[in-house]
Structure formats: C-alpha cells, structure tokens
C-alpha cells in the first residue's frame, strides 16, 4: 500500500539477550507529524535507526512510500527521500558551516546550479546565515543542533526522522524549532519525532505512538487519543463558599469527581458530558446564584495521559 509514508511489518531488533524492538507494525500516513513517546530504553532510537536504514533489523520489513527499504548501494532514490537526525548529531570540527552543508549537498547529488540557492534557503530557515563562515567547533550546542537539522533537510527529503531534536535547547530555541517543523510540514513532509518534551509534541503532532519495552502499545491520531484516553475537565473558581459550589456540582450527573488545585483556590472537575452538558452545568450554577469567577473547559494533556498509562521503565 503506497499511501503509507512508512509501513513496517513485524519489525524486530534483538540485541544480546534482549529485544529492543518487538514485532512493530507501524503505519504513518504521508503528511503527518508523528510523535513517538515512551520511557527511556523503550526502543525509540532503535526503531528510528532501523527506519533510517542506519541499523539492520533482525526481522521484518520496512516500506517507505511503498518501496522496500534495503541497506546497500542499490537504492539511491530511496535514500534521497529520507532525512535522519540522530540524537547525538556528530559533526566535523574542521569544516565551516557552509562547507559542511555543501559537502552534504554534494553527497546527495544536488545540481551545482541549485546547490547555492538551497544552501541559502536552509541557512535562512535555521537562522544561521551570519554563522556560515564559522568553523563548526566554535558553534554553541543549539546552533550545532540547528545546523544538523539543516543538514537533514538539505536534499529536500519527503520523510524526516528526528530523534530527540529539542533536547538541550532553551525555550526560545524550542519555540523556533517548532516553527521550523511547522514550515516543513506545510511543505508536505512527513515527520517522525521522538521526544520527551510532550507539550511540544502535543502542539506539533497529528498522531502519536507510545512505545514501551519494545512494543508499540498505542498508535492513534491525536484527537482520537484525547477522546479515548483523556477526560474532559472543567476548572471552576468562586468567590463564595466552596461547599455550596460542591453541593451544586453533586446534583449534576455528568460530574464524576473533583479536586482542589492547591494555592489557586480553584476546583478541577472531571466531567463526562458533551459541550451541551457543559453549557447546562454553567447555566445551572449561575441560576443557583453561585458567584463564579472562572469556568473553563479543558482536556487532560498528553503528559497526564502518558503518566496515567503507568508505563514501566525498561531496565
């Protein structure tokens, strides 16, 4: 099936004595931003390395856009489709930023006429234009990371595999990074990101997969995941007595439980109803003359869902 950007069948990797990736059937549609999360040692890096053809699977098959991925000289076309950013992004210390990118542009057989323009483009995207004459060893960690990202996309891949691309970046740089990813997604790339920064993923991703002990335990689109696993919550605040508010809440059948949010004096209510039921609750509270200062519908975020699943650490 060629409408999958990535499809794996029974993908397995064994290391000495244990299985790092176990019978994974991963399917990613093209154009998606797919977030891969899981505790340390779950096998994310191993999975991504196999998808990038940097590691040979013990068993199983990988199809990229419908073509079988093989690890040898035989598939230059397929290799041009992939962009892989590993978690340790090794670089060359003796080259300048420009030479480094030009080297990879050549390795990917970019046409000389096009090369210069493309280099300018990616440098602008990762905001390293003013550093292009610097030797790589003089860059900061964040700059090196952005340079690596530039290297990953220099040949205009249609599938990006990013392994923990934001670790070690400051909040501003992370914000910029999300911006870049959004630009790339709009350009039509399919992107697989593994990350431990779940708030970033929640903002970026269209789908999420959760790995645990080598298994892919969950793989769904983000809305579906929220619908299935996250509960609706309402944050309430009142000037009056809490007890009165709680009494009023008790009468609503959609309200399950609640808890006080310490310090803020707000109440977090787990709510099972739909939007309409929400509005009804608000109306009833107002009619009951409760002095509300806050009424705010939210969902449990990705982090809460992840923690709730109670994953085990591989050890």
């Amino acid at each position, binding site marked *: 099936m060629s409408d999958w950007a990535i499809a794996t069948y029974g993908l397995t990797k064994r290391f000495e004595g244990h299985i790092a990736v176990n019978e994974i059937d991963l399917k990613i549609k093209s154009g998606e931003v797919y977030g891969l999360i899981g505790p340390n040692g779950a096998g994310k890096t191993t999975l991504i390395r196999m998808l990038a053809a940097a590691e040979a699977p013990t*068993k199983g098959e990988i199809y990229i856009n419908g073509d079988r991925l093989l690890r040898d000289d035989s598939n230059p076309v397929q290799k041009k489709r992939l962009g892989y950013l590993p978690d340790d992004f090794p670089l060359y210390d*003796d080259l300048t930023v420009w030479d480094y990118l030009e080297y990879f542009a050549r390795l990917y057989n970019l046409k000389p006429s096009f090369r210069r323009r493309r280099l300018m483009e990616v440098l602008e995207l990762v905001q390293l234009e003013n550093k292009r004459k610097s030797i790589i060893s003089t860059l900061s960690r964040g700059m090196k990371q952005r340079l690596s990202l530039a290297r990953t996309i220099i040949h205009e891949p249609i599938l990006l595999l990013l392994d923990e691309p934001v670790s070690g970046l400051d909040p501003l740089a992370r914000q910029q990074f999300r911006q870049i990813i959004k630009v790339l997604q709009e350009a039509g790339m399919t992107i697989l990101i593994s990350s431990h920064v779940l708030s970033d993923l929640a903002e970026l991703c269209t789908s999420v997969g959760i790995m645990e002990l080598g298994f892919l335990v969950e793989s769904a689109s983000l809305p579906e995941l929220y619908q299935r696993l996250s509960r609706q919550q309402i944050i309430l605040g009142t000037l009056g007595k809490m007890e009165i508010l709680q009494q009023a809440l008790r009468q609503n059948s959609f309200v399950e439980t609640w808890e006080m949010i310490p310090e803020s004096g707000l109440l977090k209510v787990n709510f099972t109803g739909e939007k309409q039921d929400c509005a009804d609750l608000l109306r009833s509270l107002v009619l009951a003359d409760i002095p509300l200062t806050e009424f705010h519908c939210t969902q449990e975020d990705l982090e809460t869902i992840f923690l709730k699943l109670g994953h085990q650490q591989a050890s």
Partner: protein
Amino acid sequence: MKNIQVFQRSSSLWEKFLDLNPQLFREIKGKLKTRNVVIAAAISVITQFVIGISLLSDLPNPDPQGLLKAQYGPYAMGSGSGNHIAYTKDMLGNWVINWQLLWLDLFIALSIVSIFSLLIVGVYMLIADTVKEDNRGTLNFIRLTPQSAGSVLLGKILGVPILLYIAVFLLSPLHLMAGLGAHIPLALILGFDIVIVASCAFFYSFAMLWSLMNFGLSGFKPWLVSGAMGALLLLLTTATFHHNHLISNTLWDWILLLNPGIVLSYLIEATYLPLNKIDFVSADNLGELLFYGQALWAKASFGIGFILFNFSLWTYWCWSVLKRRFHNPTNTLVSKTQSYWITGWLSVFALGFTLQNYQSYSSATDNFIFLQMCLCILGLALIAALSPHRQALYDWARYRHQNNKDGNILWKELVFGENSPSSVAIAINMAIAITYITPSIFLFLREKDRYIFWGFILSGLSILLYALVAQLVLTLKTRKRSVWAGSSVRGMIVVPPVCLGVADFSPYKAPE
C-alpha cells in the same frame, strides 16, 4: 591561526574537478589550508636538499692548484667498487666524476624516500582518519547518502593523504631529472611510477579495509598497521640492497613482489653501469623467479606487467570486500561466496610460486610443506573472517525461515547464506585449495614424498576442527567471546606439539 583556502578563485575547471567526488571535496576543504600546504612543500624541499647535499659531499674537494693529496670516493671513474676509488684528473686538471652514477644514486634515494613516505605515512593517515570518523559516527551519515561505497572510499583515498601527495609530487621533477641524468629510458621511469601508484592503490585499499574491521583497539589500529608496514618495507628494502641472491624460489618470493622498489632492478640494469658499483639486487636474479615454470621476470616489460597485474588483483579483492563491508559493518568480514573466489585466486597464485625450477627433489618437497603452512594460515584467517557472532547466528537460526525464501533449504544457507555457521564454508574452501594443489603433488614429487598429500588433508581437517571449535566458542554466552575463541584455537595449535615434545616423541620414529 589563519585558515585561508588555497583556491579562493572559483575557476570553473577546479569546480568541475571538485564536482567529481563529494568526498574528495570534503577532504580538500578540510585539509588543503595554506599553512598545511606550505609545511608540506617545505618538508619536501628540505628532504631533497638534504639528500642532494649528502650525495654531493662524496665528490672531491675543488683543487685548482693541484695541492691536495689523492682523494677517494664512490663517484670516481676508476675501476673497483665501493667508496674507495681514487679520483683522477683530466688533462685540464679537473676531477673526473662519474656523473651518471651520482644521478642514479640520487634517483634511487628519492625513489626509496617516496615509497616509504607514501606507503607508511599514507596508510597511517587513511586509517587514523577513517577510524576517527567511524568512532564519531560521521561515517554513518555518509552511508545513508545515495553515494556508492566506491565513490566515498575513492574520495577518501584520493583526499585524505592529499598533503602527502603534494609533497611527493614536488619531489618528482628532481626525480625525473635524476632518472634521465642516469640514462634510464623514460618509459621505464614511467613504468616505475605506475608501479608505485598501483602499490598505493593496493595498500591504501587494504588500509581502508583494516580500519573498517571492528575488533576493538581502535586507537591502536593506525599505529599497528603503519608499524607493520614500516617493518615489512624496511625488511624488503634492505634485502634488495644487500642480497645479490634475493630470490629464494619459494612462495616467499610472492611477498617480494609487494615491494614496488624491486622494479628498480630493471631501471638500474637499463643504465648499463657496471653492477659491482651498485649494491642492488640484479635483474638477472629476478629472472630466476618462476611462475608455473615461466621466467616472467627476465624481461623488464613482462616483469613490470606482472607486478602490476599482481597489485591489481590484490586491489580488486580488497575492493570487493570493502564495498560489502562499508554497508554492512556488523556482518562477517567476507561473504561465503567471496571467500570461495578468494581462496581460488590465492591457490592459483600460491601454487604458481611453489612450482619452481628445483635444485633438488628435497627442495621441491620443502616448497610444498611451506605451501601447506600457508594454507593453514589462510584457513585460520578464513575462520576469523567467516564466523558470525552469537547474536547473528542466533538470529539466523531463529528467523531464517521468515527472512528469506531460501531459508528453508539448509544446505544453500550453509554454503552461501549470510550469518549462517562457518564450518561448511570453511570445509569447501579447504576442499577448493586442496583439489587445486593435489594434481601437482602427484605430478612433481617423487613417489616417496607423496605423503605430502596426506599432510594437506590433515591440515585441512584440523582447520575444520578449529573452525568448529571457534564457532562453538563464539556461540557461548560469556563476554569476550572473540578472545576466548582465539585463545582456544591457539591452544589447540600449540598444545599437541608441546605434548609430543614433552613426551619426547618424534614422528620419524613413530612406526617403530
């Protein structure tokens, strides 16, 4: 420190050259800095100066008034050899000097310096660079690009020692001048240069292969090989200088052909200088070497041609192993199919050098015994190169039915398959070699020496036994399996003879 690129100008020819190979582009950008080029050029010039001065110091002192006593040196025209020939004067009172011999000495000195620096320093640079990239993980990126293994490795071989190439290139004008001054035909000088290039091709490919083998010790790898390379070259070069009878008419002579310096014999012969003035192995002696009974080295053209052919075969096999290795750094070093071809080629050549024009029957037997020893060494090397490790073997056993549609046919897997146990393949390799060698044993040896055949069978079987043990040890669950496998095979080789020795048991007396 200033890092100005040497070639700022974007001349289109230079651009085109760089477009040929991205890896070469990278090496040039990284290494060709003005400062480095100046240092390389300076070293080259100083070397030439030192060599030139030391040769000129053997000339007689100028003596316009004719006051000095007799002077001695190697470049006098008189008869005799060595450094103690008296210089004579012509009728105008000038010293008569054998300029041709001086030029020849300069030519030889420059040749040896170039060979040593190209092969030792070049090999060191290549291994150090590749091991560094492999350890850092940057090599993995290159593997993921659409470049073929060949293009990347070629770029490295052309680019990493580029400063060395520049230095040696700066030697070449003086080298050529010295050669022409010594009346060596231009064709021979060019032939010699091509042999040097061919030897670099082989040793550099071997260096790349060596750096992609993973057996730990990575910091030590470059020193190990360039040290071994230096020792080998030193041995072979001193041998060419001080042995008039270098050719031993055994398989050992094959090694001699790996020294490009040996071609100098033909160049020296072409000068028609009296041989006693030059302490170098003579071309006549080279002519005594036979290959399947043919004296291929008697003529310069054939000799150089065959040396080139030999280098290109070695290079070819290195590359075929390299290409596979580059993309599968964790598999066994060679594939089973490759091992059969390599064994076949080695047997053909080894037997060719074993069949010489023997002085006596016993030396023929000795040659075959030497061949048998070399077969054992080949067998041990094959065990190391073909035996998969525990995890690979385990995966093969567990998943071969699913991974591969041929996986169900066991014999096919054992003979050709990747990561299957090595024993069957080793047996086939031994069989190939012994089958090829056997007819010659029965054709060329006396009846009472034909027990050699059983010697071959015995060594084939013991290699097979070692292969089984090594494979078994490699499947154990202990750590450091390779070390254990190596030690147990070594133990099996050493212990039996030691036991026989301790028991004071001699095979000659056995049937008593």
